[in-house]
């Protein structure tokens, strides 16, 4: 039981990390390019973002997994697909604020190419708020992953993913309530931990605190 819980942590948290690794750079890239290029690019990219944003996350993920084969990989792909739009929005908002500043104008006057400006000068400034947002979001990614597992669309039952564990143990909830409760608690604790981490990071990374 305990070892299943720990081992399940590896799967659930592994899924979360995989999602984040996919999502954060994608959102950052889309947002920064849209924000900096402006005009037609901005409109195009933001409409695409809006389309993804308009679907409820779990349902889109469900549909996507159902279309593919249920399993960890497709669950990760599905969650990633639905998780990037908020980051794109955030990065775009930050970029719009930065685009008009004098220090970016100064880099343009050095003759730097737009690619270089976005990559070396704008993206690093968007990063802190993005990181904070990601850690705060991790809990909801855990929940989505667990939700998919619970519905049988993520990791498959014999493998000890937390959501799937709850699903299989649901039958004993009256006689042996601790069996499904343990993974539930694990989900809760992990989510809380990421939220606290996010809060802490926000304090550390907040540019106004300056070091």
């Amino acid at each position, binding site marked *: 039981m305990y070892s299943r819980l720990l081992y399940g942590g590896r799967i659930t948290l592994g899924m979360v990390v995989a999602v984040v690794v996919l999502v954060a750079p994608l959102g950052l890239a889309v947002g920064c390019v849209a924000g900096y290029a402006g005009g037609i690019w901005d409109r195009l990219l933001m409409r695409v973002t809006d389309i993804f944003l308009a679907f409820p996350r779990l349902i889109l993920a469900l549909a996507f997994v159902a279309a593919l084969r249920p399993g960890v990989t497709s669950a990760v792909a599905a969650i990633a697909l639905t998780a990037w739009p908020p980051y794109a929005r955030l990065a775009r908002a930050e970029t719009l604020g930065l685009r008009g500043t*004098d*220090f970016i104008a100064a880099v343009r006057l050095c003759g*730097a190419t737009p690619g270089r400006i976005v990559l070396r000068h704008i993206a690093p*400034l968007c990063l802190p708020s993005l990181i904070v947002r990601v850690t705060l979001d991790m809990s909801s990614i855990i929940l989505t992953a667990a939700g998919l597992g619970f519905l049988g669309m993520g990791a498959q039952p014999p493998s000890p993913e937390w959501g799937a564990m709850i699903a299989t143990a649901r039958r004993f909830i009256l006689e042996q309530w601790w069996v499904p409760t343990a993974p539930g608690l694990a989900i809760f604790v992990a989510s809380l931990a990421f939220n606290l981490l996010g809060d802490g990071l926000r304090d550390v990374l907040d540019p106004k605190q300056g070091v």
Partner: protein
Amino acid sequence: MIDIDGLRVRFGANEVVHGISLAVPRGGSFGLVGESGSGKSTILRAYSGLNPEWTGAMRLDGAELGRRRDRAFFRRVQMVFQDPYGSLHPRQTVDRALNEPLIVHGLEDRDARIARALSDVALPRNVRFRYPHQLSGGQRQRVAIARALMAEPDVLLLDEPTSALDVSVQAEVLNLLRDLQERRGLTYLLVSHNLAVVAHLCSVIGVMQGGDLVETLSAADLRAGRVRHPHTAELRALTVELEEDTAQPAAAG
């Protein structure tokens, strides 16, 4: 060197520069003064290519400038911004800021160039690895000037280079700008609201009001009070009035 002819700049439906013309010879310096919000910074930004929404003609050394500027242009023309708090990247050290133009233009010998630029603007060596928020306003502005000089331009566009500085640093920066001009034959287009600063550095002065260049006169004429436009006269009168309070005994002491 700089030639601007019938320049108009608009932001959306709002035209803020209504067709101004000016010319600065090689090695010369032209000062723009005038009402706040009259479009002085906008002219500099249009010339440097930061604002593509203009009509009219602008030339650099006889060559017509288009909407887009190439890298060679940025080697020849550099700008110093009005606000030293806003013109340095908050997360980059002085070293990084000064390196940027060198990397972009692929110049060799970066260490030596940076060290020389810092000593040119009279900054101590140890500011090289500091962040902007660890510098005072005056030091930041000198970093901005050093950055503009990195790629060895021929033309400097200076937007209020000293208005954020205290008077003792202002004197140092003005002396520095004058030395650089003598040593390297730079051409200046300088914006300031301080008539005394402009008259000190520039031989020809243009006065702006509400998007128009209402008067162009020589520094000597301005000093002597040979002005034609009422706005120029008003600016001059207020400046002289302030100066007189402190002038006599200071000159005696």
